[in-house]
Protein backbone atom coordinates (compact mmCIF):
# COMPACT_ATOMS: atom_id res chain seq x y z
CA UNK A 1 0.00 0.00 0.00
CA UNK A 2 2.20 2.78 -1.26
CA UNK A 3 2.21 5.71 -3.59
CA UNK A 4 5.38 5.99 -5.68
CA UNK A 5 6.03 9.14 -7.63
CA UNK A 6 9.00 8.98 -10.01
CA UNK A 7 10.31 11.85 -12.09
CA UNK A 8 6.79 13.20 -12.43
CA UNK A 9 6.67 16.24 -14.69
CA UNK A 10 3.85 18.27 -16.15
CA UNK A 11 4.18 21.22 -18.46
CA UNK A 12 1.44 23.52 -19.66
CA UNK A 13 3.06 25.22 -22.62
CA UNK A 14 6.08 27.02 -21.17
CA UNK A 15 4.90 26.70 -17.60
CA UNK A 16 6.29 23.77 -15.63
CA UNK A 17 3.66 22.95 -13.02
CA UNK A 18 5.38 19.84 -11.69
CA UNK A 19 9.10 19.41 -12.23
CA UNK A 20 10.79 16.00 -11.97
CA UNK A 21 9.11 15.14 -8.69
CA UNK A 22 9.94 11.89 -6.89
CA UNK A 23 8.76 10.69 -3.51
CA UNK A 24 7.12 7.74 -1.76
CA UNK A 25 4.17 7.72 0.58
CA UNK A 26 4.35 4.85 3.04
CA UNK A 27 1.71 2.86 4.93
CA UNK A 28 0.82 3.61 8.51
CA UNK A 29 1.70 7.26 8.27
CA UNK A 30 -0.04 10.51 7.56
CA UNK A 31 2.12 12.26 5.01
CA UNK A 32 1.59 15.97 4.69
CA UNK A 33 1.94 17.35 1.18
CA UNK A 34 2.99 20.94 1.64
CA UNK A 35 3.55 23.83 -0.62
CA UNK A 36 2.38 27.36 -1.28
CA UNK A 37 -0.66 27.83 -3.49
CA UNK A 38 0.26 27.03 -7.07
CA UNK A 39 3.18 24.81 -6.06
CA UNK A 40 1.73 21.88 -8.02
CA UNK A 41 0.12 19.86 -5.22
CA UNK A 42 -3.25 19.41 -6.91
CA UNK A 43 -1.69 18.74 -10.30
CA UNK A 44 0.49 16.05 -8.70
CA UNK A 45 -2.54 14.45 -7.05
CA UNK A 46 -4.51 14.57 -10.31
CA UNK A 47 -1.65 12.78 -12.05
CA UNK A 48 -1.46 10.15 -9.30
CA UNK A 49 -5.17 9.55 -9.91
CA UNK A 50 -4.76 9.32 -13.67
CA UNK A 51 -6.90 12.40 -14.26
CA UNK A 52 -4.16 14.46 -15.90
CA UNK A 53 -1.47 13.08 -18.16
CA UNK A 54 2.13 13.52 -17.04
CA UNK A 55 4.48 15.08 -19.56
CA UNK A 56 7.13 12.72 -18.19
CA UNK A 57 7.62 10.32 -15.32
CA UNK A 58 5.07 8.14 -13.58
CA UNK A 59 2.95 7.72 -10.49
CA UNK A 60 2.08 4.30 -9.18
CA UNK A 61 -0.35 3.17 -6.54
CA UNK A 62 0.25 -0.26 -5.06
CA UNK A 63 2.75 -0.79 -7.85
CA UNK A 64 0.35 -0.04 -10.69
CA UNK A 65 -0.85 2.95 -12.64
CA UNK A 66 -4.13 4.14 -11.18
CA UNK A 67 -5.80 4.05 -14.60
CA UNK A 68 -5.25 0.28 -14.75
CA UNK A 69 -7.23 -0.44 -11.59
CA UNK A 70 -10.48 -2.30 -12.17
CA UNK A 71 -12.05 -1.40 -8.83
CA UNK A 72 -10.06 1.69 -7.81
CA UNK A 73 -12.34 2.64 -4.91
CA UNK A 74 -11.33 -0.55 -3.11
CA UNK A 75 -7.66 0.43 -3.31
CA UNK A 76 -7.53 4.21 -3.39
CA UNK A 77 -9.95 6.72 -1.93
CA UNK A 78 -9.47 10.33 -2.88
CA UNK A 79 -11.06 13.70 -2.39
CA UNK A 80 -9.84 16.45 -4.66
CA UNK A 81 -12.49 19.11 -5.19
CA UNK A 82 -15.56 18.63 -2.98
CA UNK A 83 -17.58 20.97 -5.21
CA UNK A 84 -17.00 18.81 -8.29
CA UNK A 85 -20.30 16.94 -8.05
CA UNK A 86 -23.61 17.18 -9.85
CA UNK A 87 -25.66 19.52 -7.61
CA UNK A 88 -28.95 17.98 -8.70
CA UNK A 89 -28.24 14.55 -7.23
CA UNK A 90 -28.85 13.71 -3.60
CA UNK A 91 -25.81 12.87 -1.52
CA UNK A 92 -27.01 9.30 -1.29
CA UNK A 93 -27.56 8.97 -5.06
CA UNK A 94 -24.06 10.36 -5.65
CA UNK A 95 -22.56 7.64 -3.47
CA UNK A 96 -24.82 4.93 -4.89
CA UNK A 97 -23.44 5.70 -8.34
CA UNK A 98 -19.92 5.44 -6.89
CA UNK A 99 -20.75 2.13 -5.20
CA UNK A 100 -22.15 0.68 -8.42
CA UNK A 101 -19.10 1.60 -10.47
CA UNK A 102 -16.93 -0.53 -8.19
CA UNK A 103 -19.36 -3.29 -7.30
CA UNK A 104 -19.64 -2.16 -3.68
CA UNK A 105 -22.86 -3.15 -1.85
CA UNK A 106 -25.20 -0.18 -1.48
CA UNK A 107 -25.55 -0.90 2.25
CA UNK A 108 -22.03 0.48 2.54
CA UNK A 109 -23.33 3.85 1.29
CA UNK A 110 -25.44 4.35 4.39
CA UNK A 111 -22.54 3.23 6.57
CA UNK A 112 -20.16 5.88 5.28
CA UNK A 113 -22.88 8.54 5.32
CA UNK A 114 -23.31 7.83 9.02
CA UNK A 115 -19.57 7.75 9.55
CA UNK A 116 -19.18 11.31 8.22
CA UNK A 117 -22.33 12.53 9.96
CA UNK A 118 -24.40 13.15 6.85
CA UNK A 119 -27.20 10.64 7.37
CA UNK A 120 -29.79 13.36 7.94
CA UNK A 121 -28.85 15.21 4.74
CA UNK A 122 -28.42 12.07 2.64
CA UNK A 123 -31.70 12.42 0.76
CA UNK A 124 -31.32 16.13 0.11
CA UNK A 125 -29.91 17.42 -3.13
CA UNK A 126 -26.26 18.45 -3.02
CA UNK A 127 -27.00 21.98 -4.21
CA UNK A 128 -28.31 22.69 -0.71
CA UNK A 129 -25.12 21.47 0.99
CA UNK A 130 -22.64 23.80 2.66
CA UNK A 131 -18.98 23.52 1.71
CA UNK A 132 -18.36 21.59 4.91
CA UNK A 133 -21.11 19.11 4.01
CA UNK A 134 -19.65 18.68 0.54
CA UNK A 135 -16.28 17.98 2.17
CA UNK A 136 -17.91 15.32 4.32
CA UNK A 137 -19.66 13.82 1.29
CA UNK A 138 -16.34 13.71 -0.57
CA UNK A 139 -14.68 12.02 2.40
CA UNK A 140 -17.53 9.52 2.53
CA UNK A 141 -16.82 8.78 -1.13
CA UNK A 142 -13.14 8.29 -0.38
CA UNK A 143 -13.93 5.84 2.44
CA UNK A 144 -16.62 3.97 0.47
CA UNK A 145 -14.44 1.12 -0.78
CA UNK A 146 -12.49 0.77 2.50
CA UNK A 147 -9.26 1.50 0.61
CA UNK A 148 -5.70 1.13 1.88
CA UNK A 149 -4.51 4.33 0.24
CA UNK A 150 -6.15 7.71 0.76
CA UNK A 151 -5.49 11.10 -0.81
CA UNK A 152 -7.07 14.30 0.43
CA UNK A 153 -6.52 17.69 -1.18
CA UNK A 154 -6.93 20.46 1.42
CA UNK A 155 -9.59 18.54 3.36
CA UNK A 156 -10.10 21.10 6.12
CA UNK A 157 -11.15 23.88 3.76
CA UNK A 158 -14.63 24.98 4.64
CA UNK A 159 -14.90 22.96 7.83
CA UNK A 160 -15.78 24.50 11.14
CA UNK A 161 -13.74 23.85 14.26
CA UNK A 162 -15.60 20.63 15.02
CA UNK A 163 -15.06 19.47 11.48
CA UNK A 164 -11.35 20.26 11.62
CA UNK A 165 -10.97 18.28 14.83
CA UNK A 166 -12.94 15.44 13.29
CA UNK A 167 -10.68 15.36 10.20
CA UNK A 168 -7.56 15.29 12.35
CA UNK A 169 -8.87 12.35 14.29
CA UNK A 170 -9.97 10.60 11.12
CA UNK A 171 -6.59 11.00 9.40
CA UNK A 172 -4.83 9.74 12.51
CA UNK A 173 -7.06 6.71 12.89
CA UNK A 174 -6.80 5.85 9.18
CA UNK A 175 -3.01 5.85 9.44
CA UNK A 176 -3.09 3.93 12.71
CA UNK A 177 -5.09 1.25 10.94
CA UNK A 178 -2.06 0.86 8.68
CA UNK A 179 -3.36 2.83 5.73
CA UNK A 180 -1.33 5.14 3.54
CA UNK A 181 -2.58 8.70 3.89
CA UNK A 182 -1.45 11.66 1.78
CA UNK A 183 -2.99 14.97 2.73
CA UNK A 184 -2.14 18.25 1.08
CA UNK A 185 -2.28 21.60 2.75
CA UNK A 186 -0.87 25.05 2.50
CA UNK A 187 -1.45 25.49 6.23
CA UNK A 188 1.67 24.46 8.09
CA UNK A 189 0.06 24.50 11.47
CA UNK A 190 -2.42 21.91 10.26
CA UNK A 191 0.23 19.53 9.03
CA UNK A 192 2.28 20.05 12.17
CA UNK A 193 -0.63 18.67 14.14
CA UNK A 194 -1.50 15.69 12.00
CA UNK A 195 1.37 14.58 9.77
CA UNK A 196 4.14 12.11 10.60
CA UNK A 197 6.03 12.88 7.46
CA UNK A 198 6.09 15.84 5.13
CA UNK A 199 6.76 16.23 1.45
CA UNK A 200 7.36 19.90 0.73
CA UNK A 201 7.25 21.22 -2.81
CA UNK A 202 7.65 24.69 -4.27
CA UNK A 203 7.21 25.63 -7.92
CA UNK A 204 6.68 21.98 -8.75
CA UNK A 205 9.98 20.83 -7.28
CA UNK A 206 10.73 18.71 -4.26
CA UNK A 207 12.12 20.82 -1.43
CA UNK A 208 12.00 18.37 1.44
CA UNK A 209 10.90 14.80 2.10
CA UNK A 210 11.34 14.00 5.77
CA UNK A 211 9.60 13.47 9.09
CA UNK A 212 7.73 16.36 10.62
CA UNK A 213 10.04 16.42 13.66
CA UNK A 214 13.15 16.41 11.55
CA UNK A 215 11.85 19.18 9.39
CA UNK A 216 11.30 21.30 12.47
CA UNK A 217 14.62 20.42 14.07
CA UNK A 218 16.92 20.19 11.11
CA UNK A 219 15.93 23.14 9.05
CA UNK A 220 16.95 26.47 10.42
CA UNK A 221 18.98 25.67 13.51
CA UNK A 222 17.57 25.51 16.98
CA UNK A 223 17.86 28.68 18.98
CA UNK A 224 18.86 28.60 22.64
CA UNK A 225 17.46 31.35 24.77
CA UNK A 226 19.53 32.26 27.82
CA UNK A 227 19.13 34.96 30.48
CA UNK A 228 21.91 36.00 32.79
CA UNK A 229 22.81 39.06 34.86
CA UNK A 230 26.35 38.75 33.42
CA UNK A 231 25.53 38.86 29.74
CA UNK A 232 28.88 40.34 28.73
CA UNK A 233 30.80 37.58 30.47
CA UNK A 234 28.63 34.95 28.79
CA UNK A 235 29.13 36.61 25.40
CA UNK A 236 32.86 36.25 25.99
CA UNK A 237 32.40 32.56 26.89
CA UNK A 238 30.35 31.96 23.74
CA UNK A 239 32.97 33.42 21.41
CA UNK A 240 32.80 31.56 18.08
CA UNK A 241 29.05 30.94 18.33
CA UNK A 242 26.34 32.87 16.54
CA UNK A 243 24.87 34.95 19.31
CA UNK A 244 22.25 37.66 19.12
CA UNK A 245 21.62 40.03 22.00
CA UNK A 246 17.89 40.06 22.68
CA UNK A 247 17.94 42.38 25.70
CA UNK A 248 20.08 43.62 28.54
CA UNK A 249 20.14 40.18 30.15
CA UNK A 250 19.05 37.93 27.29
CA UNK A 251 21.00 36.23 24.51
CA UNK A 252 19.84 34.01 21.64
CA UNK A 253 22.39 31.41 20.57
CA UNK A 254 21.96 29.82 17.16
CA UNK A 255 23.10 26.35 16.09
CA UNK A 256 23.72 25.17 19.58
CA UNK A 257 21.94 23.29 22.36
CA UNK A 258 20.99 24.13 25.91
CA UNK A 259 23.42 21.48 27.12
CA UNK A 260 26.30 23.13 25.31
CA UNK A 261 25.42 26.66 26.40
CA UNK A 262 24.86 25.49 29.99
CA UNK A 263 28.25 23.76 30.08
CA UNK A 264 30.04 26.80 28.68
CA UNK A 265 28.33 29.10 31.18
CA UNK A 266 29.26 26.76 34.01
CA UNK A 267 32.89 26.62 32.90
CA UNK A 268 33.00 30.42 32.79
CA UNK A 269 31.27 30.70 36.16
CA UNK A 270 28.38 32.72 34.77
CA UNK A 271 25.07 32.34 36.65
CA UNK A 272 22.03 31.64 34.48
CA UNK A 273 18.44 32.67 35.24
CA UNK A 274 16.91 31.00 32.25
CA UNK A 275 18.00 28.42 29.71
CA UNK A 276 15.72 26.96 27.02
CA UNK A 277 15.57 25.82 23.42
CA UNK A 278 13.11 27.72 21.30
CA UNK A 279 11.09 25.27 19.29
CA UNK A 280 10.87 26.45 15.78
CA UNK A 281 7.40 26.05 14.36
CA UNK A 282 6.92 24.13 11.16
CA UNK A 283 5.58 27.33 9.74
CA UNK A 284 8.93 29.07 10.17
CA UNK A 285 10.83 26.08 8.80
CA UNK A 286 8.46 25.95 5.87
CA UNK A 287 8.77 29.62 5.10
CA UNK A 288 12.53 29.31 5.25
CA UNK A 289 12.34 26.39 2.83
CA UNK A 290 9.87 27.77 0.36
CA UNK A 291 10.93 31.40 0.59
CA UNK A 292 12.87 31.15 -2.64
CA UNK A 293 10.18 29.17 -4.34
CA UNK A 294 7.56 31.79 -3.55
CA UNK A 295 9.87 34.69 -4.29
CA UNK A 296 10.39 33.64 -7.84
CA UNK A 297 6.77 32.81 -8.51
CA UNK A 298 6.00 36.38 -9.45
CA UNK A 299 8.59 36.33 -12.20
CA UNK A 300 7.61 32.96 -13.69
Amino acid at each position, binding site marked *: MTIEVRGLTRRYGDVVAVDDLSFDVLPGTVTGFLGPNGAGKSTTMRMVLG*LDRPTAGSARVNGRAFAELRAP*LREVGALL*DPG*AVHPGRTGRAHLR*VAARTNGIPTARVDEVLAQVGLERAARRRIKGYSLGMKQRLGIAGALLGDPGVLLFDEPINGLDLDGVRWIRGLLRSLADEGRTVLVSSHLMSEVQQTADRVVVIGRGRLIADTTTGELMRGLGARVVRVRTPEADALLEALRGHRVARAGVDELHVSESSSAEVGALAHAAGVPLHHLSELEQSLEEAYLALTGDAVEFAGHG
Partner: protein
Amino acid sequence: MGELFARTCAAEWTRLWSVRSTWWFLAAAWAMMHGIALMAGVSTAGQPDPPVGDPAWGIAPIVVLPAQFALLAVAVTAVTAEYATGGIVPTLQWTPRRSVLFWARVVVTTAVATVLGVAFAFTCGLVGWVAARPILDLEGAGVLGTVAFVLLAGTLLSVGLGFLLRSTAGGLVGVFLLLLVLPALLPQFGYEWLTEIADVLPGTSAIFLLTEEPSGRGLTERGSVVLMLVWAVGALAGGWARLVRDDAG
Protein backbone atom coordinates in the same frame (compact mmCIF):
# COMPACT_ATOMS: atom_id res chain seq x y z
CA MET B 1 -14.12 -7.12 -18.70
CA GLY B 2 -17.77 -8.15 -18.90
CA GLU B 3 -18.38 -7.71 -15.20
CA LEU B 4 -16.64 -4.33 -15.15
CA PHE B 5 -18.68 -3.15 -18.12
CA ALA B 6 -21.92 -4.40 -16.57
CA ARG B 7 -21.40 -2.56 -13.30
CA THR B 8 -20.30 0.59 -15.16
CA CYS B 9 -23.56 0.42 -17.13
CA ALA B 10 -25.50 -0.05 -13.89
CA ALA B 11 -23.83 3.08 -12.51
CA GLU B 12 -24.64 4.99 -15.70
CA TRP B 13 -28.27 3.93 -15.35
CA THR B 14 -28.41 5.31 -11.79
CA ARG B 15 -26.52 8.42 -12.88
CA LEU B 16 -29.00 9.11 -15.68
CA TRP B 17 -32.14 8.67 -13.60
CA SER B 18 -30.93 10.44 -10.45
CA VAL B 19 -30.96 13.91 -11.99
CA ARG B 20 -34.13 15.82 -12.70
CA SER B 21 -33.13 17.09 -16.14
CA THR B 22 -33.55 13.56 -17.54
CA TRP B 23 -37.12 13.41 -16.25
CA TRP B 24 -37.91 16.91 -17.48
CA PHE B 25 -36.63 16.29 -20.99
CA LEU B 26 -38.48 12.97 -21.22
CA ALA B 27 -41.67 14.55 -19.90
CA ALA B 28 -41.32 17.31 -22.49
CA ALA B 29 -40.82 14.75 -25.27
CA TRP B 30 -43.80 12.72 -24.06
CA ALA B 31 -46.13 15.74 -23.81
CA MET B 32 -45.07 17.16 -27.15
CA MET B 33 -45.44 13.86 -28.99
CA HIS B 34 -48.79 12.88 -27.49
CA GLY B 35 -50.19 16.39 -27.83
CA ILE B 36 -49.34 16.49 -31.53
CA ALA B 37 -50.67 12.93 -32.02
CA LEU B 38 -53.95 13.82 -30.37
CA MET B 39 -54.38 16.93 -32.51
CA ALA B 40 -53.43 15.04 -35.66
CA GLY B 41 -55.96 12.31 -34.86
CA VAL B 42 -58.74 14.78 -34.11
CA SER B 43 -58.09 16.83 -37.23
CA THR B 44 -57.98 13.64 -39.34
CA ALA B 45 -61.40 12.69 -37.99
CA GLY B 46 -62.71 16.16 -38.84
CA GLN B 47 -61.53 16.21 -42.44
CA PRO B 48 -64.32 16.44 -45.05
CA ASP B 49 -62.61 13.71 -47.08
CA PRO B 50 -60.87 11.57 -44.41
CA PRO B 51 -57.98 9.26 -45.47
CA VAL B 52 -59.84 6.06 -44.64
CA GLY B 53 -57.60 3.05 -44.09
CA ASP B 54 -54.32 5.01 -43.74
CA PRO B 55 -52.02 3.56 -41.07
CA ALA B 56 -52.23 5.36 -37.73
CA TRP B 57 -48.43 4.85 -37.44
CA GLY B 58 -47.97 7.60 -40.00
CA ILE B 59 -48.31 9.94 -37.03
CA ALA B 60 -45.12 8.57 -35.45
CA PRO B 61 -42.53 10.23 -37.72
CA ILE B 62 -44.42 13.52 -37.57
CA VAL B 63 -44.35 13.65 -33.78
CA VAL B 64 -40.75 12.44 -33.58
CA LEU B 65 -39.46 15.15 -35.90
CA PRO B 66 -39.79 17.98 -33.36
CA ALA B 67 -39.73 15.87 -30.18
CA GLN B 68 -36.44 14.12 -31.00
CA PHE B 69 -34.61 17.18 -29.71
CA ALA B 70 -35.91 16.68 -26.19
CA LEU B 71 -34.67 13.07 -26.38
CA LEU B 72 -31.31 14.11 -27.80
CA ALA B 73 -31.00 16.70 -25.04
CA VAL B 74 -31.10 13.83 -22.55
CA ALA B 75 -28.11 12.30 -24.33
CA VAL B 76 -26.18 15.57 -24.63
CA THR B 77 -26.67 16.61 -21.01
CA ALA B 78 -25.91 13.10 -19.71
CA VAL B 79 -22.39 13.77 -20.98
CA THR B 80 -21.90 17.52 -20.72
CA ALA B 81 -23.46 18.13 -17.28
CA GLU B 82 -20.44 16.29 -15.85
CA TYR B 83 -18.10 18.80 -17.44
CA ALA B 84 -20.19 21.77 -16.33
CA THR B 85 -20.35 20.60 -12.70
CA GLY B 86 -16.89 19.03 -12.47
CA GLY B 87 -18.56 15.69 -11.78
CA ILE B 88 -16.29 14.11 -14.41
CA VAL B 89 -13.47 14.16 -11.83
CA PRO B 90 -15.07 11.73 -9.36
CA THR B 91 -16.53 9.81 -12.30
CA LEU B 92 -13.07 9.10 -13.69
CA GLN B 93 -11.75 8.33 -10.21
CA TRP B 94 -14.38 5.64 -9.92
CA THR B 95 -13.99 4.42 -13.50
CA PRO B 96 -10.45 5.29 -14.58
CA ARG B 97 -10.68 3.08 -17.66
CA ARG B 98 -12.01 5.74 -19.91
CA SER B 99 -13.06 3.54 -22.81
CA VAL B 100 -15.19 1.50 -20.43
CA LEU B 101 -16.89 4.67 -19.18
CA PHE B 102 -17.33 5.91 -22.75
CA TRP B 103 -19.04 2.80 -24.07
CA ALA B 104 -21.18 2.34 -20.96
CA ARG B 105 -22.46 5.87 -21.33
CA VAL B 106 -23.03 5.45 -25.05
CA VAL B 107 -24.96 2.22 -24.55
CA VAL B 108 -27.12 3.39 -21.63
CA THR B 109 -28.07 6.84 -22.93
CA THR B 110 -28.64 5.59 -26.47
CA ALA B 111 -30.77 2.71 -25.27
CA VAL B 112 -32.87 4.89 -22.98
CA ALA B 113 -33.47 7.66 -25.52
CA THR B 114 -34.16 5.25 -28.40
CA VAL B 115 -36.32 2.75 -26.56
CA LEU B 116 -38.43 5.41 -24.86
CA GLY B 117 -38.68 7.42 -28.08
CA VAL B 118 -39.98 4.39 -29.97
CA ALA B 119 -42.33 3.49 -27.11
CA PHE B 120 -43.71 7.03 -27.12
CA ALA B 121 -44.07 6.90 -30.92
CA PHE B 122 -45.98 3.63 -30.55
CA THR B 123 -48.44 5.06 -28.02
CA CYS B 124 -48.77 8.16 -30.20
CA GLY B 125 -49.91 5.93 -33.04
CA LEU B 126 -52.51 4.42 -30.71
CA VAL B 127 -53.60 7.88 -29.53
CA GLY B 128 -54.03 9.02 -33.12
CA TRP B 129 -55.86 5.83 -33.99
CA VAL B 130 -58.31 6.28 -31.10
CA ALA B 131 -58.79 9.99 -31.75
CA ALA B 132 -59.52 9.44 -35.44
CA ARG B 133 -61.58 6.27 -35.00
CA PRO B 134 -62.74 4.59 -37.16
CA ILE B 135 -60.79 6.20 -39.98
CA LEU B 136 -57.19 4.98 -39.43
CA ASP B 137 -55.80 1.49 -39.54
CA LEU B 138 -53.27 -0.28 -37.29
CA GLU B 139 -51.43 -1.96 -40.18
CA GLY B 140 -47.93 -1.10 -41.32
CA ALA B 141 -46.09 -0.52 -38.06
CA GLY B 142 -42.75 -0.84 -39.90
CA VAL B 143 -42.34 2.91 -39.84
CA LEU B 144 -41.51 2.57 -36.16
CA GLY B 145 -38.31 0.88 -37.28
CA THR B 146 -37.37 4.02 -39.19
CA VAL B 147 -38.16 6.09 -36.12
CA ALA B 148 -35.92 3.78 -34.07
CA PHE B 149 -33.03 4.16 -36.49
CA VAL B 150 -33.28 7.95 -36.67
CA LEU B 151 -33.36 8.20 -32.87
CA LEU B 152 -30.50 5.72 -32.50
CA ALA B 153 -28.25 7.54 -34.95
CA GLY B 154 -29.21 10.93 -33.51
CA THR B 155 -28.45 9.85 -29.95
CA LEU B 156 -25.08 8.40 -30.92
CA LEU B 157 -24.25 11.67 -32.66
CA SER B 158 -25.36 13.63 -29.57
CA VAL B 159 -23.29 11.58 -27.12
CA GLY B 160 -20.27 11.88 -29.39
CA LEU B 161 -20.69 15.65 -29.72
CA GLY B 162 -21.10 15.93 -25.93
CA PHE B 163 -17.78 14.19 -25.30
CA LEU B 164 -16.12 16.16 -28.08
CA LEU B 165 -17.34 19.63 -27.08
CA ARG B 166 -17.64 19.13 -23.29
CA SER B 167 -20.21 21.93 -23.14
CA THR B 168 -23.98 21.73 -22.77
CA ALA B 169 -24.59 24.85 -24.82
CA GLY B 170 -22.10 23.76 -27.46
CA GLY B 171 -23.54 20.26 -27.63
CA LEU B 172 -27.15 21.38 -27.90
CA VAL B 173 -26.35 24.06 -30.47
CA GLY B 174 -24.30 21.55 -32.47
CA VAL B 175 -27.14 19.04 -32.48
CA PHE B 176 -29.66 21.69 -33.49
CA LEU B 177 -27.44 23.05 -36.26
CA LEU B 178 -26.65 19.63 -37.74
CA LEU B 179 -30.09 18.10 -37.40
CA LEU B 180 -32.45 21.01 -37.94
CA VAL B 181 -31.20 24.52 -38.63
CA LEU B 182 -28.58 24.00 -41.34
CA PRO B 183 -30.51 21.34 -43.29
CA ALA B 184 -33.51 23.67 -43.40
CA LEU B 185 -31.62 26.93 -43.90
CA LEU B 186 -28.85 26.21 -46.40
CA PRO B 187 -31.09 25.27 -49.38
CA GLN B 188 -33.05 28.51 -48.89
CA PHE B 189 -30.19 30.63 -50.23
CA GLY B 190 -30.58 29.14 -53.68
CA TYR B 191 -26.91 28.33 -54.21
CA GLU B 192 -26.37 24.83 -55.45
CA TRP B 193 -23.24 24.27 -53.37
CA LEU B 194 -25.03 25.23 -50.19
CA THR B 195 -27.78 22.75 -51.01
CA GLU B 196 -25.13 20.12 -51.66
CA ILE B 197 -23.69 20.78 -48.22
CA ALA B 198 -27.18 20.50 -46.73
CA ASP B 199 -27.61 17.14 -48.46
CA VAL B 200 -24.68 15.61 -46.57
CA LEU B 201 -25.81 16.87 -43.16
CA PRO B 202 -27.34 14.26 -40.85
CA GLY B 203 -30.49 16.32 -40.36
CA THR B 204 -31.37 16.17 -44.06
CA SER B 205 -31.07 12.38 -43.89
CA ALA B 206 -33.16 12.19 -40.72
CA ILE B 207 -35.91 14.36 -42.21
CA PHE B 208 -35.85 12.39 -45.46
CA LEU B 209 -36.13 9.07 -43.65
CA LEU B 210 -39.03 10.32 -41.53
CA THR B 211 -40.98 12.29 -44.14
CA GLU B 212 -39.54 11.36 -47.57
CA GLU B 213 -38.88 15.07 -48.02
CA PRO B 214 -37.15 16.79 -49.71
CA SER B 215 -37.93 14.93 -52.92
CA GLY B 216 -36.22 15.76 -56.19
CA ARG B 217 -32.74 16.14 -54.67
CA GLY B 218 -31.74 12.58 -55.42
CA LEU B 219 -31.81 11.42 -51.79
CA THR B 220 -32.23 7.69 -51.18
CA GLU B 221 -33.14 5.70 -48.12
CA ARG B 222 -29.95 3.66 -48.23
CA GLY B 223 -27.81 6.78 -48.75
CA SER B 224 -29.50 8.54 -45.82
CA VAL B 225 -28.96 5.58 -43.51
CA VAL B 226 -25.27 5.40 -44.44
CA LEU B 227 -24.82 9.15 -44.05
CA MET B 228 -26.40 9.22 -40.58
CA LEU B 229 -24.20 6.31 -39.50
CA VAL B 230 -21.09 8.03 -40.84
CA TRP B 231 -21.93 11.16 -38.82
CA ALA B 232 -22.67 9.12 -35.70
CA VAL B 233 -19.43 7.11 -35.97
CA GLY B 234 -17.43 10.26 -36.71
CA ALA B 235 -18.81 12.10 -33.66
CA LEU B 236 -18.25 9.05 -31.44
CA ALA B 237 -14.67 8.68 -32.67
CA GLY B 238 -13.94 12.34 -31.98
CA GLY B 239 -15.58 12.20 -28.55
CA TRP B 240 -13.78 8.98 -27.62
CA ALA B 241 -10.41 10.38 -28.68
CA ARG B 242 -10.89 13.52 -26.60
CA LEU B 243 -11.99 11.57 -23.53
CA VAL B 244 -9.15 9.06 -23.74
CA ARG B 245 -6.33 11.44 -24.63
CA ASP B 246 -7.06 14.72 -22.86
CA ASP B 247 -6.93 15.64 -19.18
CA ALA B 248 -10.08 14.77 -17.27
CA GLY B 249 -11.54 18.25 -17.65
